[in-house]
């Protein structure tokens, strides 16, 4: 996160002046984060068919093309602009692959990316993992991811979205407000509402909210 949070304005200025080195440095900074966003929002059925890197590649092409225009009048912070373009490419990718059956990629959140475990998710997850030593710990984590995922998917889309933005995309309240196009106070209140609902669901799972502090 340190490289990402450093002020990008100098690099941006150089990139805007046509310095391709500066642009690539700039994009490299955000690559992991964008890749993660794509993974998070990629439809289950496209897993393995679509490589998040391809989505990002397409986004970067457009970004380099449109950078001068963006810099003339930045309507949002640079990272959110990258995120926006990447989101557009992701939607296009869904449309291409899923056509009419397409769901808005924003509607699904996948924390656990394996096949959804059936009877015994812990054993299955252990099975899928490469490293024996960390297998059981990771399996427990996978189990928790599945439970949170189920909880998330039972929420209203807006609640799910705001929790995903805050916790999985790690956006601040301010960024979340910008992404959703609402006031910071509204974003703050909606997040709290979503968190309360989430907590209500998770608290119903015996012992689930203990032992993490």
């Amino acid at each position, binding site marked *: *996160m340190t490289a990402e949070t450093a002020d990008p304005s100098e690099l941006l200025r150089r990139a805007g002046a046509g310095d391709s080195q500066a642009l690539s440095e700039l994009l490299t900074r955000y690559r*992991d984060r964008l890749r*993660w966003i794509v*993974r998070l929002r990629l439809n*289950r*059925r496209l*897993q*393995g*068919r679509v490589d998040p890197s391809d989505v990002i590649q397409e986004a970067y092409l457009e970004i380099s093309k449109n950078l001068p225009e963006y810099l003339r009048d930045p309507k949002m912070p640079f990272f959110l602009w990258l995120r926006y373009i990447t989101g557009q490419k992701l939607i296009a990718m869904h449309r291409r692959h899923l056509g009419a059956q397409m769901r808005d990629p924003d509607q699904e959140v996948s*924390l*656990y*990316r*394996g*096949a959804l475990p059936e009877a015994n998710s812990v054993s299955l*997850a252990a*099975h*899928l*993992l*490469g*490293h*024996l030593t*960390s297998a059981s710990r*990771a399996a427990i*984590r*996978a189990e*928790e*991811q599945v439970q*949170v*995922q189920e909880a998330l998917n039972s929420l209203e889309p807006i609640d799910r979205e705001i*929790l995903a933005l*805050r*916790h*999985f995309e*790690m956006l*601040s*309240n*301010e960024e979340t407000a910008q992404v959703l196009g609402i*006031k*910071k*106070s509204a974003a*703050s*209140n909606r*997040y*709290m509402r979503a*968190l*309360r609902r*989430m*907590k209500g669901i*998770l*608290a119903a799972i015996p012992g*689930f*909210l*203990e032992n*993490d*502090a």
Partner: protein
Amino acid sequence: MPDSSEARDPVEALAEEFVNRHRRGEKPLLQEYIDKYPHLAEDIRDLFPALLKMEKVRPQTGDVTGEFTDAVNATEKKLERLGDYRILRELGRGGMGIVYEAEQESLGRHVALKVLPHHALLDSKHLQRFHREAKAAARLHHTNIVPVYGVGADDGLHYYVRQFIHGMGLDEVLADLKRLRKARSKTDVTLPNRKLTAIKSEENLTAAGVAAALLTGEFGSRSMDGARLPDTLTGPAFHPTEGWVGVSRESDSSGSALISADSSVHLPGQTGTSTLTETRPRGREHPDRFIPDRSGPLADGKQPAAPASAV
């Protein structure tokens, strides 16, 4: 710059700070916040454990709890050569391994190389199954069965080698057929002959694709994860949304290939054999699925031959 005049929920502001500290690797204590903001203690106690949980389940970069294929990627990423075989590209992957297109350099021929992932070897049963699959396939000799060239191990990776056959993935074939069925149902009654002929020739193209898919059929190996269909090497396969997919091939009297495919023939126990049969797989019929309805007349006015196993 944060606008301090905006009325944020005070608990939310604390939550953001708490989570940010947590992300920086600090271990902020609930109690610290409870002591500092006693008037918010109830919410802190109530909600912050959920915050931690949300943070905990966020998959990390390089998280081993990722997609199955990611775990495989981590070990197989750099695969460029296996013995005599130079890896050209990955064709697809499933629960039992990854299939590559490769060149057998000594003989200068293209092959399909199926590699069992490292970690699957942790279970000796998998290795046994892998060898059994190779042996079973090697014993078969049929025009519609891809020949097995060899089986081996190199650098701890077990693989077996089959003829490489160009074709399209079964998922593409299925999508194709679905599309054709739609086109057909729209045009069945009034379609001028010319157009029908066009559709028919398109079907023949598809037939070639299905035949190719059949030839590259994988034997057994019910996918452990079902997460991914191989792109090009697909025989009877487990499809994440369609269930077990079996395909059979029939000929009509005019000699052009007719394809009948059952998108969701469930094949319980079909783990050791292929379903490369000359007849339509018996199973539940799903009329809503993609198979073109053969009850209509063909372009030449003939009725299509009844599938051999029709009951």
